[in-house]
């Protein structure tokens, strides 16, 4: 081998100019992806990060009561704090009361310990008349929370800037006074049920979709083109139709005076005055979601089954296998990639479903997304909504990661 380097026509070693060209091409590709990438980073990835941040952000209260927290730092939490701490609280709270800025404080502290809201509201009204001495006495005379060590402990517990209390709440856990993690009171444990229900609904919808999609995908893949194209429309038309239209058709079908109930009554399965509730419960959620997500199972299954040569089954049968054995040992294993892709896709979509459960699910059929929406739009506990959203996001991204490992993101096909 000669040590002399091969030169390109302009005298630069070939290796270097090749690398240069490679780099140029790489840069070109990156520049094409760049605009969308930057757009998504700014308008999507950054906001999701911001949402995660919001779920642990607890700085508001620290900023509103700086003197109090400074005074409480040395307090041991055994007896009521000293006069200086009460004075510090007066210094913080007085301007808030005058400027009517204490509203958020009531809400935040009441999450920590109920009773705070009424106590602070009372204090808010009387603090303007306080004399400039003996703060402890005056506070204690205003409301009973100021005589209770537990409220001071609760207040001190809100001092850190960051808190994962909202995540605990999402799992029906909470901090007790000594910052130990304990179970939420029995009657307030609602979130664990919701998570379990969400997973259960997503799981069963996936199973139903699989059971219904497998035979029809097989039929679509084995029929001659001219018939299968026609039947494919049955799959694609719902796929292209507005989600709300499909949900409203289920509302028509499942309502008490609807066709399905008419049929049940006509068949004599139920009395006319005792029609079963098919909607506004978990049944409605199951049925409607299965039908709506079915195309997402059929399409990946179909695209895998299309590639399986029919001669394989014939070979299996000619070697003495019954049709069932041939199916079980040859056909089914070959369709597993499609099953994986379809099931993961349907599960991911089902676990975050919002519209359909909200319309046909009622209270017993609502899922975690509905709770997130409730906290966003009604209770306005945005940091809790953000925490629930982040927990859901972690679950979905895990499945997405598995999907990417197993199926490969670039293998997603549409239509």
């Amino acid at each position, binding site marked *: 081998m000669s040590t002399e380097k091969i030169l390109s026509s302009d005298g630069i070693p070939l290796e270097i100019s090749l690398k240069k060209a*490679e780099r140029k091409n790489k840069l070109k590709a990156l520049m094409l992806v760049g605009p969308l990438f930057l757009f*998504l980073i700014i308008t999507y990835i950054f906001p*999701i990060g911001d949402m995660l941040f919001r779920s642990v952000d607890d700085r508001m209260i620290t900023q509103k009561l700086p003197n109090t927290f400074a005074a409480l730092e040395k307090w041991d939490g055994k007896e009521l704090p000293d006069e200086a701490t009460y004075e510090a609280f007066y210094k913080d709270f007085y301007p808030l009361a005058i400027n009517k800025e204490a509203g958020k404080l009531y809400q935040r502290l009441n999450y920590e310990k109920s009773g705070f809201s009424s106590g602070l509201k009372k204090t808010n009204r009387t603090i303007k008349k306080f004399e400039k001495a003996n703060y402890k006495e005056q506070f204690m005379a205003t409301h009973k929370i100021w005589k209770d060590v537990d409220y001071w402990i609760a207040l001190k517990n809100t001092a850190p800037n960051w808190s994962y209390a909202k995540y605990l709440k999402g799992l029906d856990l909470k901090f007790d006074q000594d910052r130990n993690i304990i179970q939420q009171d029995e009657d307030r444990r609602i979130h664990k049920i919701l998570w379990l229900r969400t997973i259960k609904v997503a799981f069963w919808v996936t199973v139903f979709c699989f059971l219904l999609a497998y*035979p029809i995908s097989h039929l679509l893949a084995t029929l001659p083109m001219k018939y299968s194209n026609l039947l494919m*429309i049955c799959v694609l038309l719902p796929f292209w139709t507005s989600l*709300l239209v499909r949900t*409203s058709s289920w*509302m*028509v079908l499942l309502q008490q005076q609807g066709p399905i109930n008419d049929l049940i009554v006509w068949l004599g399965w139920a009395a006319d005055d005792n029609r079963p509730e098919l909607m506004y419960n978990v049944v409605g959620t199951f049925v409607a979601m299965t039908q709506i997500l079915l195309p997402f199972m059929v399409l990946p299954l179909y695209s895998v089954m299309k590639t399986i040569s029919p001669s394989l089954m014939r070979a299996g049968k000619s070697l003495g296998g019954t049709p069932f054995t041939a199916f079980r040992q040859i056909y089914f294993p070959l369709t597993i990639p499609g099953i994986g892709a379809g099931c993961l896709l349907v599960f991911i979509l089902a676990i975050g479903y919002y519209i359909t459960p909200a319309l046909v699910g009622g209270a017993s059929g609502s899922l975690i997304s509905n709770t997130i929406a409730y906290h966003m739009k009604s209770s306005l506990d945005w940091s809790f909504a953000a925490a629930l959203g982040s927990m859901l*996001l972690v679950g979905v991204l895990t499945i997405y990661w598995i999907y990417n490992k197993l199926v490969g993101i670039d293998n997603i096909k549409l239509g």
Partner: protein
Amino acid sequence: MALPTYTSWNYRIWHYTYLTICGLVFFFLIAPLFVILPLSFNAEQYIHFSKGMIALDPDAFSLRWYEDMIYGTKNPWGLATKNSLIIAFFATIGSTVLGTVAALGLSSRHMPYKAAFMALLISPMIVPLIISGTAIFFFMAKVGLAATHTGIILSHIILGTPFVVITVTATLTGFDHSVTRAASSLGSNPVNTFMKITLPLILPGVISGALFAFVTSFDEVVVVLFLAGLENTTIPIQMWVGLREQLSPTIMAVATCLIIMSTLILVSAELLRRRSERLRGINR
């Protein structure tokens, strides 16, 4: 599918059971959509099949709900349709341009970290809408775009691009890159090559991606629910509001129009797919 004469009875029975099951599943998929059509022509105010409708009495049918949809008092559908079309139009253009350009980069064999970029660019399609909605709402509120058309259009561009990226990269997988090299060697600049050679070849993929983006924007409820003010109401929002209050025949009329629209979109998407396969020389 005719069975050969030698098939056993067992297998015959199984075969027809299988066909019946398939028939039922297809029925389950498609029938709910067709329930809406006759109900939208109902002359009565209630959403159920009246005796007259079942007897096919012409008096039981009317167009009054379509009239109500178009001319009704305090009609929300006119504004909603206008908003939906404006938003979907700009969102489609935005997603299609950004998505197509990105897909060109992603399909280049020089693209580094292809899988990671792809996973990130597709993520708006995977992340549950309620999470995207929450995050986008916080962001738009911060930059002052909540309750504006611009904010909604931007968020629909986010949600629409994954579909464009997927369809266009799929079209580009069978793309013969030697034609672009031939163009460059004949002295064409990259922009000219793209416009004259690449784009016409991938156009079916681009258009079907655009259709996806359009439908995504046109159907989208969750994000708009967070972002929209009274001025930005869209068709899905109006339907959502209506469905939560009461199932009215007017909604059935709107739904029928939407079904007709999606049928048209389906037909064009299907024709485009076939054309694209023919252009790329894929025979099935």
